[in-house]
């Protein structure tokens, strides 16, 4: 497959970048997600704005009671960063689980959080989509996953998003019009055709992960058929905060269900319980109840659903043993 021609702008400062974006440019970081979609001729931006000379996006430092990671940190850097390992080990774990070694060198945090939601009916060549007749997210007007649906349910497949949401991370966006910071959870929308609240002229500048205020155990569970390359088919970020009396909070964020990572609800009732096998089994049931995979990514949804139960239970059992 060949890329269609485009103009590439390489701004040397944020202001230049903002200006280029305001004129309709599309940001490109590592290009590992964007370029395949362009090769598939999903869309044809005239102008790409490379971020690679913007040193401010390379930040990594502690700021107040939190860790700040610039949008341009590569997945490999995030995976091997001592600061991330110390303050947000689940984020390192998620970054290390992404894609493959080569892609982790190129792929960035900002690109990962802005990953285009995936679907077996849209991540295909122009020819293939044409033969299908397109869908809501491409050239058509139906959804093949939920034929009665009016909204695209393509699956957000970023490994980092659920881990960061589970840690209450926030993101800072900026444009010529100013800057804003919001919870990462609020950044996403449940619409696969545009699953973030990012305005076209905005750049994601950095992510801030607040430090834990007490003892905490976390783990990121990724399931995929192969041990490398594959996007997650099940992604579960699990966080357990502990207090004297036992568990103070259980948080599970599941991805690859729809366009927005899902914060599993009704887990408050586990506060005060001991972190043990019984808790693991019960939480697993709640996750199973609430997480209902769709045939949006190419895998049996019933099997994916069952995996939610098994993998949640196992992960919590493992956290209990730590």
């Amino acid at each position, binding site marked *: *497959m*060949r890329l*269609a*021609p485009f103009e590439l702008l390489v701004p040397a400062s944020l202001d230049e970048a903002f200006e280029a974006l305001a004129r309709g440019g599309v940001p490109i970081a590592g290009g590992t997600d964007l370029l395949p979609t362009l090769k598939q001729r999903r869309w044809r931006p005239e102008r790409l704005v490379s971020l690679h000379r913007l040193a401010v996006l390379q930040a990594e430092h502690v700021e107040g009671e939190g860790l700040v990671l610039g949008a341009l940190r590569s997945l490999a850097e995030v995976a091997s960063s001592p600061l991330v390992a110390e303050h947000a080990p689940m984020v390192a774990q998620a970054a290390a689980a992404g894609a*493959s070694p080569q892609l982790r060198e190129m792929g960035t945090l900002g690109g990962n959080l802005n990953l285009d939601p995936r679907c*077996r*009916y849209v991540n*295909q*060549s122009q*020819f*293939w989509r*044409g*033969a*299908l007749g397109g869908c809501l997210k491409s050239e058509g007007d139906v959804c*093949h996953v939920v034929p009665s649906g009016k909204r695209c349910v393509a699956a957000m497949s970023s490994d980092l998003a659920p881990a960061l949401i589970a840690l209450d991370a926030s993101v800072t966006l900026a444009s010529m019009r100013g800057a804003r910071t919001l919870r990462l959870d609020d950044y996403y929308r449940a619409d696969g055709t545009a699953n973030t609240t990012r305005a076209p002229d905005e750049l994601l500048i950095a992510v801030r992960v607040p430090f834990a205020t007490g003892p905490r155990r976390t783990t990121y569970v990724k*399931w995929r*058929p*192969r*041990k*490398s*390359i*594959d*996007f997650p088919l099940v992604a579960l970020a699990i966080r357990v905060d502990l207090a004297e009396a036992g568990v103070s909070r259980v948080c599970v964020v599941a991805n690859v269900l729809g366009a927005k990572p899902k914060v599993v609800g009704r887990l408050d009732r586990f506060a005060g319980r001991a972190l043990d096998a019984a808790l693991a089994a019960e939480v697993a049931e709640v996750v199973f109840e609430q997480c209902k995979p769709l045939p949006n990514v*190419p*895998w*049996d949804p*019933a*099997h994916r659903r*069952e*995996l939610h139960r*098994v*993998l949640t239970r196992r992960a919590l059992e493992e956290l209990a043993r730590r």
Partner: protein
Amino acid sequence: MTGSTWQIGKTHRRVGAYDRMRGVSRYTADLKLPGMLHAKIVRSPHAHARIVDVDLEGALALPGVVAAISGRDLPTPYGIIPWTHDENALAVDKALHVGDGVACVAAEDEATAIEAAAAVRVQYDPLPALFDPEEALASDVRINPYAKKGNLTKEVELAFGDVDAALAGADLVIEGEYRFAGTTHAALEPHCALADVDGDGVLTVWSTTQVPHYLHRELARVLELPARRIRVVQPPLGGGFGGKSEPFDLEFCVSKLALVTGRPVRLLYTREEVFYAHRGRHPMTMLHRAGFRRDGTILGVDARSTLDGGAYSSFGLVTTYYSGQLLSAPYALGAYRFASRRAYTNKPACGPKRGHGSVQPRFAMEVQLDKAAVALDLDPIELRRRNALEADSRTINELRIGSSGFLDCLAAVERASGWKERRGRLPFGRGLGVAGSTYISGTNYPIYPNEMPQSAVQVTLDRSGRARIFSGASEIGQGSDTMVAAIVSEELGLALEDIRVLSADTDLCPVDLGAYSSRITLMVGNACLSAARALRRVVTEAVARAWEVPARRIALVDRVALDLEEPGRVMPIDEAFQRAEAEHGLLTAVGDYRSPTDRHGDYRGGAIGASPAYSFTAHVAEVEVDVETGEVHVERVWCAHDCGRALSRRLVEGQIEGSTYMGVAEAVFEHHELDVAHGGLHAGPSLLDYRLPTFLDTPAIDALIVEAPDPRGPYGAKEAGEGPLHSSIPAVANAIYDAVGVRLDALPFDPPRVLAALRERGVRREGAR
């Protein structure tokens, strides 16, 4: 076996390996000619449609577009098998599957060609599409316009002995229905072709083919040019596995466009197009019944198979025979009957993939044997041992077996895997499984009937102490260039790097039929050996005369000629060659190979499956099954393979590893699947969705070489390229049963399927059977 071991049986660095490792090998896609045009094929979005009109005008009107053709420009049908010419280079009246080629455009650059392809207006009249072979066989809708018997592409029924009586008299009858889902080759290099016409009107086609000779013939037929005006060159290949063993649309298109425009034309498939070209392993449904005596003796086997052929015949006639003919070894069968049918469907055509036609039924057979071993309370290795055919015997369908190392293969995997000590003592969820198999070393009959040699090699020595080998053989990564180099270096005392191999160029090299059915080592090897021995005679005689000793005292090793009875007396090899050339004239010799015609039965179809020699394989697989997720982790596989004689050890080990890898991949990961609910679109024509195991998913593989030399092979060599795939799949299936007590009779053993099977049998948490 010859006693000499100067090169044979050693480990060699492959010819061309260094260039490949440095990334400087020039593959077909790397070739560029001045003025070269780029071509793109317009493909059908419909699985079955009448072509009402192809309007090329819009494409031709675009700046930079030079030419465009449609099916009517290349109307002559072709096909790799002379009796089933049922394909056109581009669809003439009907498109038969999604991705079938309809038109082709040539432009100054690839981007323009892509635009031009989109500008071709094709008007289709969609027809009902059939995706299931049984439905296709029952339907009045005719898929392939050249078909002679509706949607039945081939049917074979053969019986040997009285199977019904054998089953009726058996102590145990095992019956099962097995399903092989279908897989593709997924060679890393996509198909590519480049054509150029010179001032004398000679058309040269560089192509990623593994059958230059057959391509040469079919080009002549379809282009209606005399073969003498066509040259086919096969540059270094990035893998074939059977996926490049017949002509494809792109080769005809670039040739036609080069003839029309007078300019070089190149076409490189996208990965997606490789999936549409396909020719992968047939989906097969196999109903097997086998009768056993209490002691495990196989009294009779009845096998009925349905093959889902896709839209074209490809090698299907042979595949249909192979699905039955090659099951008759490595075990003695009391009686045997098979019936195989191949159907057309509106899918990319199936064809030969490594282990052509026999991998699917081998899976069925070996799981049947495992079930029998359980029922009879016999060790599955012992059951196989008791039924093993002897060397120099005849199978029930009258194939003549020469050497056999099958028992040694079983013993080798039994020992290496710790079978006796470990089997039955592993924790729940972990298991060991065994399977055995056999394969051909080439077929005794060529694809088109003729009396000429199947292979030929020319070897020339020069004054500098070098040799040139002109070999028709297609080096497709299997190492055939290294194989001929090892033979010439063995016979003429040269180092491997003193030998230049020129292969697979129809202008420069003698004809060889191609890289398929594991024929090259035996056939080209024999041809090369006879040429090399003829030259050795000339050289040793010249040295003998110089030293005034009998020629039998002269040995050629390590770049010298030496006197075996007077070790101090040596002559540098270049001097030896010079003396020989002075006496004899140019040092060149040809060798060829003719296959035996007396090693099969005298019935219709009896020659199909007949080979000069048969290889034997045994696998033991060790798996870990996660009963909650359905994941099967293949931890380790031991493969013992009787290749006759390992001419170059590392190459044989590489083939054992590669075959086993491919088999395990098919067992656990791969599925070439169409989305029938969406018009027969390919479910995921990319290497992200078609999941080949990564390094991390690949088991540890122990390659165990067994050597039972066969007098019909060069130095006793048989084959190693395809045999070591077969039994890997049933070995995994049988290991899963050993691990969790659940049978998987349908492939692939992917987690949803395995989990469903576990649930059905009531297996849940660890240990809870």
